[in-house]
């Protein structure tokens, strides 16, 4: 039983590594599941035993990258002077890890990451939930009470919009994405601060 689980994990990993290489070399659209199976040295149909679609593979790669980013971010001694600064540092840490997947993100932005997604799937949850928990925690540390579902939904819309922009950002070293992130967070925090205290959950002492 144990061997089977290990074999399964190894096969899954092989699929992810092969996909990552192929997406990087050929792009998401030009890569087929048949190509992935061949590179991972498994049968063509076997891929679907692990991932229902190519998009699910990207979601899984993204979830792993984001988990790594969160672990690194948690170890950091963050000295943010404002909510924007704290949130900026967090999102920027994710972007660094997601960079190899940048151009393939639209595949998951329209599905598991979409603010409108009904069924985000396991990887989708892994991408969304820890991220929003960290956002809530950072905002709380900066003087806000728990963020309302509306605030979180608004934030998520801005965040996925940023990822969408980033995916096709042609500015040098995607510097426009940094400006957009700065702008988006300014807007979000301004919205939090601008609302009546009881509605936004903004603490009295803020």
């Amino acid at each position, binding site marked *: 039983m144990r061997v089977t689980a290990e074999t399964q994990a190894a096969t899954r990993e092989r699929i992810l590594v092969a996909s990552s290489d192929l997406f990087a070399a050929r792009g998401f659209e030009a890569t087929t599941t048949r190509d992935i199976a061949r590179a991972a040295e498994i049968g063509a149909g076997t891929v679907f035993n692990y991932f229902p679609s190519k998009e699910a593979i990207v979601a899984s790669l993204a979830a792993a990258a984001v988990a790594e980013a969160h672990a690194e971010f948690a170890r950091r001694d963050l000295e943010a002077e404002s909510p*924007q*600064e704290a949130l*900026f540092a967090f999102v*920027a840490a994710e972007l660094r890890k997601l960079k190899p997947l940048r151009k393939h993100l639209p595949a998951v932005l329209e599905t598991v990451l979409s603010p409108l997604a009904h069924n985000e799937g396991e990887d989708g949850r892994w991408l969304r939930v820890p991220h929003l928990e960290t956002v809530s925690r950072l905002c709380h540390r900066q003087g806000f009470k728990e963020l309302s579902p509306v605030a979180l939904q608004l934030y998520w819309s801005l965040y996925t919009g940023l990822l969408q922009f980033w995916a096709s950002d042609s500015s*040098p070293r995607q*510097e*426009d994405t940094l*400006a957009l992130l*700065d*702008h988006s967070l300014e807007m979000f925090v301004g919205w939090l601060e601008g609302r009546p205290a009881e509605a936004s959950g903004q603490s009295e002492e803020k």
Partner: protein
Amino acid sequence: MPTIAELIRALPGEGEPAAALPQPLAAASMRPVPVGRLRRMGLLGTLQAKIAAAYLFYWVRGYFRGAQEKEKLLAETHWRTALRMLDSMGYLKGAIMKIGQMLGNLPEIVPSEFVETLDELHYTAPPMHWSLLSEMVHNELGNDPENLFASFERRACAAASLGQVHRARLRTGEDVVVKIQYPGIARTIGEDFRNLSLFLLPGRLGKDWDNVKSQMDDLRLRLEKEADYEAEAAMLTRARPLFREADGILVPRVYPELSTARILTMDRIPGVHLEEFLQRKPSQEQRNEAGRQLLRAWYRLFFAGRLFYADFHPGNFLFLEDGRLGLLDFGFMLPLDPELWQLLYRMDRALTTGRREDLATAVKEWSWITEDPSDADRLRLSVEYADWCWSARYCGGEFDFGDEADFVRGAALFGEMAGKRYSRSRPCTATVARQQFGCRSMLYRLKAKIDVRAVCEEEIKAADWDRRSYT
């Protein structure tokens, strides 16, 4: 001097209550720089941005107005307006702020309080937050500031019009400053100018519109160049060997491995700006020597380096405790091509003899003035103005730059020229005029007494300038 935010808060409620004023600059620091033409047009629709644009328009329109009218307009533009403009420029952080600096160096058209306020802006504009800054460093240099440097101050020590400056220490021990550009700002300069051109459209029917437009284009090109820190690094590297230790003039060394088109790492020069230098109540001789150093630096770059140091404002110079002078910003340099160099060589003859006919020949060539009788007044005025600009040099002997009457005379001449639409000239004239006023304004504030000819001749000799063809 109080902070800009304090000044804004202290404004009397003329027109609108203070509470409705734009947020103070401290808050503006968190506002991102908008990218994209439409959004920026939206910004220019706000009250304070209109005022900023109005100032620019005023500057250009000055060419179309009589002196009396100018005074009237000046009275209308109270220095409160300047403060609001600062707020607007702090928001845009791009070319408009740079234009503010230009206005700051044209004392003949702006109230003195405005000039002083803009001086402040040269080094106290609001910072980007650390997370963004750190990410820019990582983006450009491939690692975080704390890994690249032995230490890196989180707070900016100065504002650059397109970014900000931080103190740091290299792993090898050198104290440096790191100039970092706001992401995307370099590409917004073109957008800024296109937007401003729309505001200036009413002036297009004026007689000299083409000329004004070409001068605006000239400024835009130079600003775009200034946004390229790689180009600035190249200029610093070219200028630095022109000065020896004994000269007492410092040009910072660039660290190319820690510099890119958006980040510039260079030696930190420990000195104070003009305002602080003056607050220390330097002796007359210290003032004179500071003035001599300013001129020496400028002439050295010009004669030996064939470089025109155009960005002549107090934020770009540091006065050291031991009397040395530090030059800071090499973004706005005009390398003199052979054609321009030859022209300036011919100009030098007039500046050497000081003869009226030589001055007339020089200004005719510079400003394309013809023998036509309709150009006679323009020629007279241009010669008068050239005489004001350069008499200190060709007369020789000690010249008192603190002479207020003389300074006002020059400003009046410039105003008259502008009022009579005598602006038709070479595209670089705006740059040259800015430099001249910037330099005179600093020497005036220093109240320096200097033998300009002695300083200049020394530099000419050192550069081995050959004057034999004059005769």
